[in-house]
């Protein structure tokens, strides 16, 4: 859509929304949120940007195909699920760093898993929407 008002707004909303998304991702273990909703927020940010600025602009912004995030996210989740196997614990067993980390709280494999979820969701949503928009 050719509207500078939306375009301008989206330019400012994009970082804010992305910030939100990270926020929602990280605190999911303590409050409502988590990788899934966080990922959706991030993708919504980019989708909004695409609506306002056109898909090609958003694509140059991201620089790589969002689909690439899917295997990356899955691999991250996979590794966090596999890590316990090194300690002869079952798949997906939570490993926790003994001390609390500022901001995030307890650092554990679950967080990496959630980040994996986050990345996959972004990858998926953007792949779907960009593909549709591409082939309209």
């Amino acid at each position, binding site marked *: 859509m050719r509207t500078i008002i939306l375009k301008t707004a989206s330019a400012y909303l994009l970082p804010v929304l992305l910030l939100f998304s990270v926020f929602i991702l990280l605190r999911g273990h*303590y*409050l*409502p949120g988590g990788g*899934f909703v966080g990922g959706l927020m991030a993708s919504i940010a980019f989708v909004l940007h695409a609506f306002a600025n056109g898909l090609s602009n958003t694509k140059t912004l991201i620089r790589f195909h969002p689909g690439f995030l899917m295997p990356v996210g899955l691999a991250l989740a996979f590794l966090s699920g596999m890590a316990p196997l090194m300690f002869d614990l079952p798949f997906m067993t939570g490993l926790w760093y003994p001390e609390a980390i500022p901001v995030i709280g307890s650092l554990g494999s679950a967080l990496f898993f959630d980040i994996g979820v986050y990345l996959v969701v972004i990858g*998926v949503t953007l792949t*779907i929407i960009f593909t*549709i928009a591409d082939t309209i």
Partner: protein
Amino acid sequence: MEIVLAIMIGILYAAGIYMILRRSLVKLILGIIILGNGANLLIFLLGRITKGSPPIIPGDLKVFEAAYADPIPQALILTAIVISFGLQSFAIILIKRAYKVVKTDDLDEMNAIDQDS
């Protein structure tokens, strides 16, 4: 309230089914979405409902002190919602592609393959 919700869920199921039985592919998918929502709410209701106490351990506590809503149905529904989203988005694209190839969204005109026997 449970009774009201039970009736509502029944209606959601009915509406979903009714939509699936229509001729339009778009309606079909809307029906599937409605049905999915009905199923999610069903899980929710059958896991028993609790007002105003989300399953989040409050403040500095380490375990719950007061009543809390059953978190399991919530987790299940979350999973189900996300999965449905995956399926739905695929289905929606299917409409698009089907329309392009078959040139219709009328399901009654998509029966060539069953009948060439």
